[in-house]
């Protein structure tokens, strides 16, 4: 048995921060799994035009309501069956991923811009700006999101852009709250004051001192809001006030399949599972990012 001098605490520390981060990322199973699944879905959506077996809009009324391939009557021509208009389900699912992802990313981005701007302003300047913005956050929180979104779509029609705009203008509150809190924390730290005394302008301080520090928190919020937006769009489309047919939205597909609940449950099960998997993957990535970056922000 080797005899050794008692190690000091310094000797126990070890690898560099960069190495530690990488180790944490790859050691975090949920993050990896989520990222892989999300990556696959994104890939499918992007390559849909090439890999989809059929045209998602092509109707074939002789092949209506065919069950998926694992049923006795299923065929490999339509591996996941067809819907009530004879359209290939698998192809519609693939194109539907486009809708969900497009809305997810766009809304997360738009609401992120709005919310972050509001939150940083409130956190940095305090005083009246803070009071007004906090008031608006409360206003937004007390608005029933689904209701307002439904109303707006009913008014302006259900195009992708309308949905993106209305959701983008509704889902900014969490960004604002997180940005505000983190900005306030950072602002009270010394290095912001030193930047000010050095004469740095406000936008410079915000961009170079504050943003890098709140960025990882915002990314986590972005994943949450992306998931939120996807689920909301699905709900809106399900209720008939979202994406309009014949566009293949997973929520819409569930709505269209609702009446065949009794005999052809796969029509609603499969798109639902897709939604579940997508949102789950996004959440896992978000949680993973949070777990992985939190120790860094503590350091």
């Amino acid at each position, binding site marked *: 048995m080797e005899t050794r001098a008692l190690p000091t605490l310094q000797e126990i520390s070890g690898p560099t921060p960069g190495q530690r981060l990488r180790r944490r990322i790859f050691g975090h199973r949920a993050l990896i799994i989520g990222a892989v699944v999300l990556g696959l879905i994104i890939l499918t959506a992007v390559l849909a035009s090439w890999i989809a077996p059929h045209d998602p809009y092509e109707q074939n009324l002789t092949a209506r309501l065919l069950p998926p391939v694992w049923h006795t009557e299923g065929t490999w021509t339509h591996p996941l069956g067809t819907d009530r208009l004879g359209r290939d389900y698998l192809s519609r699912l693939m194109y539907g991923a486009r809708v969900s992802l497009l809305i997810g990313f766009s809304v997360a981005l738009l609401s992120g811009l709005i919310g972050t701007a509001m939150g940083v302003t409130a956190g940095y300047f305090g005083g009246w700006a803070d009071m007004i913005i906090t*008031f608006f956050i*409360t*206003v937004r*929180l*007390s*608005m*029933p*999101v*689904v*209701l*307002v979104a*439904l*109303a*707006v779509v*009913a*008014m*302006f029609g259900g195009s992708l852009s309308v949905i993106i705009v209305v959701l983008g203008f509704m889902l900014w509150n969490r960004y604002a709250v997180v940005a505000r809190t983190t900005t306030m924390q950072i602002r009270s730290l010394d290095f912001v004051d030193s930047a000010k005394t050095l004469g740095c302008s406000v936008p410079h301080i915000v961009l170079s001192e504050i943003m890098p520090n709140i960025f990882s928190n915002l990314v986590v919020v972005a994943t949450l809001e992306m*998931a939120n937006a996807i*689920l909301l769009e*699905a*709900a809106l489309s*399900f*209720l*008939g*006030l979202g994406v309009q047919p014949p566009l293949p939205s997973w*929520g819409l597909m*569930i709505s269209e399949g*609702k009446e065949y*609940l*009794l005999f052809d*449950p796969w029509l*609603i*099960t499969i798109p*639902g599972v897709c*939604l*579940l998997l997508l*949102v*789950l993957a996004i*959440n896992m990535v978000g949680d993973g990012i949070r777990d992985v970056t939190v120790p860094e922000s503590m350091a």
Partner: protein
Amino acid sequence: MLIYTLKRILLALLVAILVSAIGFGFLFLSGDPAVTIAGESASSEDIKYIREFYGFDRPIVVQYASWLGKAVQGDFGKSYYFKLPVSQILGDRLPVTLTLGACSLAFALLLSIPLGMLAAIRPNSWIDRIALMLSVMGQAMPTFWFGLMLVVLLSVWFPLLPASGTESWKNFVMPTIVLGYFAMPALMRLTRAGMIEVLSSDYIRTARAKGLLANSVFFKHALRNALMPVVSIAAVQFGFMLSGSVIVETVFAINGMGYLAWESITRSDFPTVQAIILIFSLIYLVLTLLADLLNAWLDPRIRVA
């Protein structure tokens, strides 16, 4: 304390007014209400007449002020569709939604608090993993889809519960589960986190050092402190549930405010929609106010200054 409450109430009213104003503004952007009321086959004279009769030719601010003035007296106008006073329709439907909301919240709490507690007492154990799994699913599942799946399971495959309608208590079982499950993840995670933090605190160590037994330590000393933040979040969740009730009630055809909201939107029944938006936001504001007050009352450090 009293001044604080009054300030909060005033703030809440301001918020409610702004929300309703936004709602009002939106609806009027959407198109000509006169056309909606008159119907498709009306002549332009009829439409003009209706416009003047209802006062749609006035500036929008005036219209809003007039609506607000009547609204505070409880007069929300007449539904374009039902041709009945909106307040009467709301009076019929609101209790249904509130009942559903209360049951769902109770269900969510009954599920989250014990699970969160057990998960915190034994972190990373199998029960913690189950709690985590349930929470993750609750966050990721589309509410309406969950509802449909439950219908398939409990109405079609095993005909235990009715799929729609509002006749008996049985109609409320599945909607309660769906709506409650929607609120469960946040509550469970909060309970768990709060409990973990409390369990590592010094006063729990003192409690153990006094020789108190497990249920005294957990239920008396720990839970009381861990639950304080849960109260406010529960109220906020109830508010969100109102939003979710639009979906759930529509899926299960429950005659509540949510279903009414969807119907009215599709029918362009503006007075009803405006009233519902206002009522929903008022409920949320009242709940958050109550939650804050409850919180202040629960924490002796605030209550006994």
